[in-house]
């Protein structure tokens, strides 16, 4: 009994750290609707800066002052990022901010190594909190009690800030209705900057407080960012109280879960999130999303099938690519095959995101399932490549049927996070089920049949499959099904009122996207000759998102271009420099600012700018009305 109490205390201390970081994210999320991927990076920066300060200035004042100053410094950096980068892209489609902050995260990961060196750094312990307190004869670190007290304290302070200050009231009003606050004459820009700075401050503070517990390293951000997102979603977007409760729930379940099943901590948070979202689609304390910005569909240029000229152009490009094996070297061809695989993966995600309006954060699950499906067939049934390529993706399809059924019941960020939860659960199965999947050592020896084993042969195989699949996806966009899907995305109200079952339409789209991702995954398995759990991992999902956003979310086939550009750049940089993250992150940030509609979106704008739309100023007003309509 006493033991359980002490265990609960330990859980509470973990919860406090989690809550501090999560509260900041929740505030940014709730007020600004920004998926701030860089939150983990600010957490890490908080720890690094605090390390430098506390290492230099000893004593209680040095330590606590250092923690506080570090948090303020990082908050200032955050505010700067908001002003320089995010302000430029508020009008870009939703999730574009995710892309920008993802670029910043990549840069920070390399920058901290350049600044602070590669070694893990251990900071001082908190003066006055180095010892332990005896609870029922067991020692509990006094620092744990400090953290446990800090959680509710910060919660209370935030409550006061939001309910008892003019600033807080304005922020809450802005959360409800931005136009109204703007019409009150409040400078929304600064309101947003201050909110962002507050959120970053909390992240950095959470990071700085970790110094007495662990080492500071360049991978700190990854260890927390996803968990924090999950906590925010479990609690309900924008609800600080929700984040508090969720942090406790997750930490306590983990603390007690490991007593029964020590392996559980790998996926505790994701299991909790999946259960919570299935039962309560808006998280524990969340309200139905008021006016989620549409991920796509705010474009006012309706899509058209390609003209004959355009079709010939694409056919010419395909022919040139198909001729590549005649002159390109082996390495170029294997890189080409890899890019082709990602083209299909990105195109499948793009179909779901752009046509279906459903932004998945866990699309790698179906890519990976397809890869594992093919690999398991080869390993256990000795299937030849041809059969594995056909049957392997079925596993992706099955996964999409199962998970999609739950996911399409949600929308917006909640949908995204449930897809993430399922992807992580799938990942942990691949990771843990060592007897079947080989765990993290993966499945080896998945090589292509002899006719496709040369780089040339495999390139042609990949090209044929990818061209057929991408063409099929594009046909689907313009098919009656694609129209119905877009209808469900554009207006749930109207589509339901003309007999369209939105959920089942979206479910089918989810399955289609999952199956095509599975095909890409099966190809990937044979390209690499092996499959590892990382195929299903979050980085793969993020890669897919980046490709789609980079290409342009409002275009029909932007993902193809996005995938080619991103993957080619990533592979080239990996080969040329160890600072590939820094350069890649920088390039992403530049692209985001230069092309807020994605590369293809930008090119389309360029093409349509010349013939000025008839109607001129008169029709502008109508556009605005329509936009307001769409936003509702």
């Amino acid at each position, binding site marked *: 009994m006493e033991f359980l109490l002490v265990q609960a205390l330990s859980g509470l201390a973990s919860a406090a750290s989690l809550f501090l970081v999560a509260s900041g994210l929740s505030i940014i999320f709730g007020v600004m609707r920004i998926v701030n991927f860089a939150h983990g990076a600010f957490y890490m920066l908080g720890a690094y800066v605090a390390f430098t300060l506390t290492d230099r200035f000893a004593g209680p004042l040095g330590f606590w002052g250092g923690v506080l100053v570090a948090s303020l410094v990082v908050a200032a950096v955050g505010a700067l990022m908001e002003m320089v980068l995010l302000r430029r892209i508020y009008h870009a489609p939703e999730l574009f901010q995710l892309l920008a902050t993802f670029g910043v995260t990549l840069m920070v990961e390399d920058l901290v190594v350049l600044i602070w060196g590669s070694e893990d750094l251990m900071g001082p312990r908190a003066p006055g909190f180095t010892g332990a307190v005896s609870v029922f004869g067991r020692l509990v670190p006094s620092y744990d009690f400090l953290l446990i007290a800090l959680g509710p304290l910060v919660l209370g302070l935030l409550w006061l800030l939001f309910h008892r200050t003019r600033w807080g009231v304005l922020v809450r009003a802005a959360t409800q209705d931005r136009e109204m606050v703007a019409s009150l004459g409040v400078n929304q820009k600064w309101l947003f900057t201050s909110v962002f700075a507050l959120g970053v401050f909390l992240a950095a503070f959470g990071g700085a407080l970790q110094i007495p517990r662990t080492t500071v390293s360049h991978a700190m951000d990854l260890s927390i960012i996803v968990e924090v997102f999950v906590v925010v979603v479990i609690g309900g977007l924008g609800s600080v109280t929700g984040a508090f409760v969720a942090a406790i729930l997750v930490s306590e379940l983990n603390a007690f879960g490991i007593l029964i099943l020590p392996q559980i901590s790998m996926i505790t948070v994701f299991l909790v999130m999946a259960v919570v979202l299935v039962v309560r689609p808006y998280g524990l304390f969340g309200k139905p999303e008021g006016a989620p910005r549409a991920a796509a*569909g705010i474009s006012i240029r309706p899509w058209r099938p390609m003209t004959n000229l355009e079709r010939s152009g694409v056919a010419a490009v395909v022919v040139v690519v198909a001729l590549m094996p005649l002159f390109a070297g082996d390495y170029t061809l294997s890189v080409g095959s890899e890019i082709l695989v990602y083209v299909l993966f990105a195109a499948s995600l793009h179909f779901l995101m752009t046509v279906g309006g459903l932004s998945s954060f866990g699309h790698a699950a179906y890519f990976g399932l397809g890869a594992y499906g093919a690999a398991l067939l080869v390993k256990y049934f000795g299937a030849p490549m041809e059969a594995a390529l056909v049957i392997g993706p079925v596993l992706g399809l099955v996964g999409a049927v199962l998970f999609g059924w739950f996911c399409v019941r949600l929308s917006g960020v909640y949908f995204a996070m449930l897809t993430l939860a399922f992807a992580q659960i799938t990942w942990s199965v691949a990771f843990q089920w060592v007897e079947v999947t080989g765990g993290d050592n993966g499945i080896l020896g998945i090589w292509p049949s002899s006719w496709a084993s040369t780089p040339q042969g495999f390139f042609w195989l990949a090209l044929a499959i990818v061209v057929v699949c991408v063409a099929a996806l594009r046909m689907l966009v313009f*098919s*009656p099904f*694609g*129209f*119905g899907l877009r209808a469900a995305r554009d207006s749930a109200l109207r589509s339901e009122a003309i*007999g*369209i079952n939105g959920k089942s339409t979206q479910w089918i789209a989810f399955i289609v996207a999952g199956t095509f991702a599975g095909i890409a995954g099966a190809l990937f398995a044979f390209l690499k000759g092996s499959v590892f759990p990382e195929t299903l991992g979050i980085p793969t999902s993020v890669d897919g998102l980046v490709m789609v956003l980079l290409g342009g979310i409002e275009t029909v086939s932007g993902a193809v271009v996005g995938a080619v550009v991103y993957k080619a750049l990533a592979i080239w940089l990996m080969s040329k420099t160890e600072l590939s993250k820094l350069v890649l992150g920088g390039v992403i940030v530049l692209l985001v600012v230069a092309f807020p509609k994605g590369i293809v979106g930008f090119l389309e704008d360029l093409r349509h700018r010349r013939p000025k739309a008839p109607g001129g100023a008169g029709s502008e007003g109508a556009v605005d009305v329509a936009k307001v309509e769409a936003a509702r």
Partner: protein
Amino acid sequence: MSALLQVNGLVKSYAGVHAVRGVSFSLNGGEILALIGPNGAGKSTCFNMLNGQIRPNAGSIKLAGEEIVGLPPRTVWRRGVGRTFQITATFSSMTVRENVQVALLSFHKRLRSALGYAGAAFLDEANKLLALVGMEAQAGRPCGELAYGDLKRLELAIALANAPRLLLMDEPTAGMAPKERVELMRLTAAIAREKGIGVLFTEHDMDVVFEHADTVMVLNRGELVARGTPQEVRRDPHVQAIYLGEGLLYDARHREESAQ
């Protein structure tokens, strides 16, 4: 012959507040019925219950004798109920014609098809519907850049795509110029009479109501307080009391015009 639409004892309350309390009425094919009442009287709630968007707490809604309470909007639509919305709901990423084509594809149960170019499907029918509402010239325009009045007409075309027996129109002329209002309602009336469609509409503009409705019902605080021909309702002292209290009945038009 039983009525096209027979509503009995419809009740809806939100958290103890009664929005609609026991509304009953009937509507025949070809009849144009206006539902009026001050803001907050429960008109929109009534509408949303009729097409299945909101589930009533009690009551029955029979369409040509068949119970439709509890069916989702998409099923109600399949039974032959078209509707337009107070705030237009159209597919902003498509052209005007494509909006109608989607409705036609849905009506003909072709939306599960993965083959063929949907933009070429039911072209003639879509053009006919657009011509019917006077939108043929704008068929190729992106829906997102239409003027508000045109969106309303597009909605009517979409609502007619399933050859409905009953048309629900929630403030069909709001936001339109006076001349457009008359045109739209005249058009609606002509279509309804020709095809025997029953029309139920709500409206703030009393000129539109009294000019085009066969029958007028007045809803106040969730209850029907009057029903009759426009003349009867106009003379009803109870109705006058409700509206005069707000100074609305005859000033409505001027108010809206000055607001424009």
